[in-house]
Structure formats: structure tokens, C-alpha cells
């Protein structure tokens, strides 16, 4: 539980808003009567940081956390009245970070006590997402026993995966809290967080490779695994903030006025270059008094810095609808993508370490 809440706290610290985080907690440990510190969850025995103290938005809790709901969430197969806040509103430009933890084994992870998700289930769900253009890149991170088996079945492109332990290998907890009488955090997550603490802001240049190199056997006590064969980019080029931080950038929409042939994203180096150029230009041009975005013939942009901020704000607020829309007025020519290089929607998922189902009925 603390694993997930710590990860949740980290991505929030790096600027991902709650609206883009789906947090699934299968039990309310903070209010469990066995918790010596009511209302609090700690990830360290020093009790310095209450993970539950700040505002925590749990999207799926308790018995809502099921394999079915998780697969539905990924593939967006809901009925109409399912609230937007509980959906994964991503498109082909979104980078998704998925973190899972709990009891697991070879090719499965337990959900609650009654069911489990198989590695192939996730692989198939990811492929559906790919076919439905629901993601640009996925970073899948899992901390459980024999975690590396969980990503072994993936077959869809642009997925980077990382697990805490090999087949037939356990993942270990980092330390126990003798007051609570439980192990509060697992090694893999602990050292991942330790690394992520180095990222002070969104401009960090640390890459995924740095993260993977950081998680050595000495620290984690199990062989962490990384799967890169589905991923097009070199991990040493992938910034941590591509998945963990909310770095907003603007890229140009190269389509014609009918909206065809949209090109965007960093998959195309040329686009990426243009995007960078444009953004630089835009910022440089911030002294210009013009209130509207103007397109000149060479695809340069003149706008005020404030407008960029305002526009970005709106984009984020309206989620992927805004990202998809053509915009109005002068904005028509521009498309802001809350993702491409930026992490947009994070799915954080948790199944707590131990049993949590309490069915109480008078037994006499």
C-alpha cells in the first residue's frame, strides 16, 4: 500500500495532476483498526512522511479494484455513464506509466483474495490499447515476486517494462516497522523512489537508463529486469520525465485545413525538431504585443508567454478532448499535446501486501 502511495506522491510532486492519475487501492489501511496510527500511512519506520496526510484521490477502492475493472480501464470499455474521472482518457499521443504491486507469482498478480490477473491478460489489454490508439508509449513497472514474468508476454510496440525480480525469485521488503508490525515498503520501490527523489524538477536530464542502472542487485536483493525490445527508443535517451513528470510542450499541427495527415509526436525526428524550434520561437517571441497566435509562412509562432500558459492550462483541464480537438480561431493551426514527450496519464495501481477482505457477520 505504501509502495503505491509513495509512487503516487512522487508523480504528483513532479506535476501530474490528480485528474490524470488513476489510483486503485484495494483496501483502506489508513482506517483499518489494525493500524496503530489511525488515518496515516507511512513508508518508513521513521514516520516522517504521512503518505495519506495530504490530499489523496483514490479512484478505485476496495472491491472496485478487480481484474475486470482494471482491464476495462485500460481498454476503456465502459458503459456511457461511467464517470470521466474514473476513465483512462488517453490517445495515441499519451504516455502511460503503469505501476503495480501486490502478491504475485509466475505470470500472475493477485487482485483481492479471490482473483488474479495473468501476464497475458495485460499483454492482450495493451495490444487492444495499441489497436485503439490509446497510447504513444507505455512504461510498465511492477513490484511483486517473480515480477519479470508479468511483462514477458507483451507483444505490442512502444512498451518499456521493468520488474523487480526474475522467474522463481522473490521480491523483498525493505524494512519493517516494529511499531506497526509490518514491512512498510519493498526494496525495489524503495530504491526507485530514492532515485526519483534526485529529480528535483521537470527539467531533469536523468534517463530511464540511469534508473535501471540504479536498481542493482546489492540494493534490491533480486534481479530487476528491463524489457526494451518492444520499445523503439534507446533507454538512455528516454528522460525520466517522459513518464514521471508533467513537462508541457507545444508541437505544431502539420495538417491541412481539413485536418488530414496530422503528424505529431516525437516518433518523427523532423517533427520533434520543428516542435522544439517552434516552442523556442514562441518563448523568444513573448515580448510581442500580439494577443493571438499568428502563423507565418515558415511555421514560426508569435505569441505571448501568458497565452501559452493559459492555453496549456485549458488543454490539461479538458483532457484528451482538448488534445484531439482542432481548437478554435487562430489556434486551429496549432495543436498542443499534453504528451508526446510529456507524461500525461498515469495509472497507479495497488493491491496491498496482505489480506484485506473483512467480512464480518455475527457468528453466534
Amino acid at each position, binding site marked *: 500500500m505504501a509502495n503505491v502511495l509513495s509512487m503516487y506522491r512522487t508523480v504528483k510532486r513532479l506535476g501530474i495532476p490528480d485528474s490524470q492519475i488513476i489510483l486503485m487501492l484495494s483496501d483502506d489501511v489508513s482506517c483499518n483498526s489494525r493500524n496503530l496510527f489511525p488515518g496515516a500511512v507511512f513508508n518508513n519506520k521513521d514516520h516522517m512522511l504521512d503518505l495519506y496526510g495530504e490530499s489523496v484521490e483514490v479512484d478505485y477502492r476496495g472491491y472496485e479494484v478487480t481484474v475486470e475493472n482494471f482491464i476495462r480501464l485500460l481498454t476503456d470499455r465502459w458503459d456511457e455513464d461511467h464517470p470521466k474521472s474514473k476513465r483512462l482518457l488517453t490517445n495515441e499521443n499519451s504516455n502511460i506509466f503503469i505501476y503495480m504491486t501486490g502478491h504475485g507469482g509466475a505470470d500472475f498478480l493477485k487482485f483481492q483474495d479471490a482473483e488474479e490477473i495473468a501476464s497475458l491478460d495485460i499483454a492482450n489489454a495493451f495490444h487492444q490499447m495499441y489497436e485503439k490508439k490509446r497510447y504513444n508509449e507505455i512504461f510498465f513497472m511492477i513490484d511483486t515476486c517473480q515480477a519479470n514474468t508479468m511483462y514477458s508476454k507483451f507483444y505490442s510496440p512502444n512498451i518499456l517494462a521493468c520488474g523487480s525480480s526474475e522467474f522463481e525469485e522473490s521480491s523483498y521488503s525493505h524494512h519493517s516497522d516494529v*511499531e506497526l508490525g509490518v514491512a512498510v515498503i519493498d526494496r525495489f520501490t524503495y530504491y526507485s523512489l530514492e532515485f526519483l527523489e534526485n529529480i528535483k524538477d521537470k527539467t531533469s536530464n536523468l534517463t530511464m537508463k540511469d534508473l535501471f542502472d540504479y536498481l542493482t542487485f546489492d540494493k534490491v536483493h533480486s534481479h530487476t529486469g528491463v524489457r526494451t525490445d518492444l520499445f523503439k527508443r534507446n533507454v538512455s535517451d528516454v528522460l525520466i520525465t517522459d513518464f514521471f513528470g508533467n513537462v508541457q510542450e507545444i508541437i505544431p499541427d502539420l495538417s491541412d485545413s481539413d485536418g488530414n495527415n496530422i503528424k505529431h509526436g516525437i516518433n518523427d525526428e523532423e517533427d520533434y525538431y520543428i516542435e522544439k524550434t517552434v516552442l523556442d520561437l514562441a518563448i523568444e517571441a513573448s515580448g510581442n504585443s500580439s494577443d493571438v497566435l499568428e502563423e507565418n509562412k515558415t511555421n514560426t509562432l508569435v505569441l505571448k508567454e501568458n497565452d501559452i500558459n493559459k492555453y496549456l492550462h485549458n488543454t490539461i483541464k479538458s483532457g484528451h478532448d482538448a488534445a484531439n480537438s482542432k481548437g478554435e480561431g487562430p489556434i486551429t493551426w496549432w495543436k498542443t499535446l499534453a504528451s508526446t514527450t510529456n507524461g500525461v496519464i498515469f495509472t497507479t495501481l495497488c493491491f496491498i501486501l496482505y489480506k484485506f477482505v473483512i467480512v464480518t457477520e455475527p457468528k453466534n
Partner: protein
Amino acid sequence: MSLLEKLHRRAANSGLITKAITSLPKLSKLFTIVGILWLCVYLPAEGNFRNTYFSENALMPNQAYSYFRETEWNIVRGYRSEITKIINDTDIRNTVVSDWLNDIVGVKTAIHHNSRYGDTLYGILNAQRGDGTEAMVLAAPWQNSEGDLNTSGVSVAIALLRFFSRWPVWSKNIILVLSDNSNVALRNWVEAYHTSLDLTGGSIEASIVLDYPGTSDYIDFIELYYTGLNGDLPNLDLVNVAVSVIEHEGLKVSLNGIKNFQARDFQARLETLLLGVEKMALAGVGEPIMGHECFSGWRIQSVTVKAKGDKGPADVTTFGRIVEASFRSVNNLLEKFHQSFFFYILLAPKWFISIASYLPAAIFISISYALASLNAIVNNEFSSLPMSSTHNIQALLLLGCCLIFTFVLSRGFSLVICNRGNEHTYNALMTSVLLGSQLFLSNLKSLTKLIIKPELGYRLKCFAYLFFSVVLTSLLVLNFSLSYVISILAFPMTLLVSSNSILKNKVFLIISNPFISTFIATSLIKNTLQWNIFCQLVEAWKDLGCFTWFVICIGWYTPWLMVALSDCNETLNKIEHKSNINKQE
């Protein structure tokens, strides 16, 4: 199928089947020997037992630091010095302690009055944040199984309840039970709790009975008792928790009070195993009731923790920490104890044999009775008689009559014994009458003119052994030890062959008689003549619900009676003798 047919033909051609049929008595003996060796040689041998392990992840024993330490020492001492003053006064001790408990925040108390077995004071500490549907019991009888005053046990229990009331972690209610004794008074309270008491604290998941007589401050080691009534054992996870917690506190554990608890060699394992089997077979009967047995039959996992010695290394707060840590572990449970094993035999605190390994021992012996039954049908010249022959029907009728007779006897004897209570001389007299009558029945042949037909004799034996085999097989899952012990004690019954001398048969009959055999066996184990044993058996049924008495009377005595009847035939002797001679020729 063709392969099977081929095998069958091959076997028939080589005369294997005939050979097997003629050697049925030998096979029967062989199976019994295998059954005995299985338990006594095979199981304790290296490689046949396993290390215990925690099956339920949620238990997490010893993960939390235990705080019942020096700060509580003076509180325990205070309670102890006060209790020493009142412990002998059964009239006021409950009311005084009740006042103390009422002073503890969150505790409600009540006294369960029972004029026959004694009053029981209990207090319920409601879990502040729990839902109050489940409970853990901390029981400290005023008097322990040996009749000693449980002064320290009661003091530690009260101090613990006071200490527990300050913790917010409890998700289960904690019930402190102070009964007059660890025996019927506690049992009566448990029954009342589930039937008639007004103040209750939800379903009891686990209970720990504290046994710490005297006023010493120190403990040398801990004895752990776990065998319940009727073959009921606490979930192995609870025993594991107790063992792990005790060893974590640096104390040694003696299972069932075995003397040689440090050794781990073959002999020590065998001794521990046999002691466990003995405790289980005699639970509630020959063995003192430690307290945890009282919770049997209500799906409550229960152990008794007994402090031994007064030199150290541990002190009285260690004893409290054992309970504290165990309760915190059980408190973590979200479900009932359902993982791990409910059927096991322990060879050492951390070694066990699961049911799959030890069950064959009893099965082999019950098979040997089935073989003896088969032998009584096929190995004589009456084997060709049709199934509906009058002898079969007569034998079945006799089985019915014997069943009715043994049932009436079991009820009648319990009435006779219990009319007079626990008077020793009276019990001894009744026991002697019972044993005498059995001796008479064993000599039915020489003392009476009763004669039955030889065919009937064989059929009687056949049904008797078959009946016994079925009884044993059904019993071995319920109470393995009882089934195993009875099957061995009764085995001489199957050796009864008319070719033997009359004296030999007589001896076999006498030693396999349920009452005589029980009397001798328990007397040998206890090293004194157990004149009270039948009274104990009857009382165990009435007070504790222990069914051993009926197993002995109906399950064992019925076939024995039939075998004794079948022996009453002189012509049988001659005929069988003749057929044996024929075979030899």
C-alpha cells in the same frame, strides 16, 4: 481392461490368489505390523517430517515490538500481592477482581454463575476501532490442572488486559476469563458463552490459557499444550505462532510437557510423537485438563501456555509478552484460521507430520481387520453358503442385539456411576464389577453350556471384524490417535482361532476386551491402577462432550462380544482343526 484381465489370468494360473487367500491371517498380521512400524519407525525417521511454516501470511508473528516490559512489572506484582490475599476465598475473589476490571476503561464484566461447577468471572475489552464481531480469549483459571493456585497466571492476565486497553490496534475484542478451574468450570463457561450468556463479545477466534502457578518472578521454560478433545487440534498456524513467539522471547518450548525437550534425535522425535498420540487418545480421559481442551468443538483455536521453573532466564513480563505478541499476531487475521493444517502430529516445536503421512498407519491396521473378516468367510468349508443363509441373518441379528446391549450398557453404567458422584471406593467397586463381568464373558465357553453352530461362529467373527474395521476407518479421520491406539489394543481379538488352545484364546479375549484393555493400558501409562478411569470416561462425556466412552462401548465392545460369542463352540474347534490338518496334507 485387457491388461487387467491378463494380469488376473496370470495370477490365477500361478495360484497366487489361492495362496493369498490361504495366507490371509498372515497378511492381516503383516498389515498390523506395518501400521505400527509406520508410526514408530518410519515417521520419526529423517526425511519423513517437515519444518513447520506459516501458511497464513497475515499472522506475521514477532513483527511488532512487544511493550509488556519492566514498566508493567510492578503492576503485575501489585495485582499478585493483592490476589494472594483473596485467592483462597472463592466467595469474594470474583467480585473483587470484577471491580478491578471495571476500573479499566472499555471493559465490561459479568459473572457466570454455576452452582455445580463454580462461578466464572469474565470481562470483555471491546476493541475501540474494531467491529466487535470477533474475539480472542485470555483464560486464567484460578486453579490449574494440578490443583495449584494459578496466582501469577491470573495476575499477568489482569495486568495484560489493563495493558491491552491502552492500545488502539485491536480489531477483535479481548475476553478475559477467570474460571474456578481449568476443567469443567471453563468448559461450562464456553458452552454458556455460545448458548445463554447475555454479555458476549463476538465469535471467539482463538484462545490462550495461562497456567503460571505460584508467585515466582522468573521462568525457566514454557510448556505448550494443544491437543483438544475428540481429536480436535488447534490450527497449526496458532501453534506456530505460539512456538515462534516463545522462542523469540528466548525461551525453550516443551510440547505436551515432555521432559526431554531439548534433544532432536530420533528417540526424542519418537517420544514427542508418541506423547502427542497418547495425549490425543486420552484427552479428557486419563489426562489432566489443561484448559485449552474446553474450547474444543466450537471451532476455537486454543492452546495452553504453562510457565515452568523459577530461576530464569525469563521473567514474569516475558510471560505477558508471549500473550501480547500472540494476540497481536492473531489480531492481524482478517478471516478465521483456515490455512495451514488442522490434522498434524508434532515431532518437535518446529517439525510436523501432516495427515497425509500419518494416516496410512491407522489405515493399515483397519485393513488388517477387514482381512481378518475376509478370512472368516473364505477360509473354511462354509464359504460356499449363500449370502441369504440363516447363519448370515442370525449373525446380523446378533450384531444388532450386541449393539443394543452395548448401548444400554454404556448408558446404564454412566447412570450407575454418576449417581454417586466421584467417590473413589464406589468407583473402584463399580470398575471391579465391570472388569469381573468381562472376565466372566471371556470365559463364556468354559463357564456356560452355551453352544452355537460353527457356521454361525465364522459369520459372527466376519461381521465383528468388518464392523470394527468400519468403525476404525471412520474414526481415524476424527481422532486418529484414538483409532490407532484402539486398533492396536484390540488386535489380539483377530488372533482368536479355534485351532489354538483354549487358554490361548482366553488370553487373547481377555487382553483385547475393551474395558480390561483400557484399564491395563491407562494404568501402565500412569504407573498406578486407574480405578477411576471409567468414571472419568463417563464424566468426560457428560461434562466435556468427549465421545471416547461410546467409542469404547459401542465401537469396540460390540465386535468383541460377537467374537467372544463365536468362541463358544467346541465343534468349531474340531472342524477347523480338521480342515487345517487337511490343508497341511
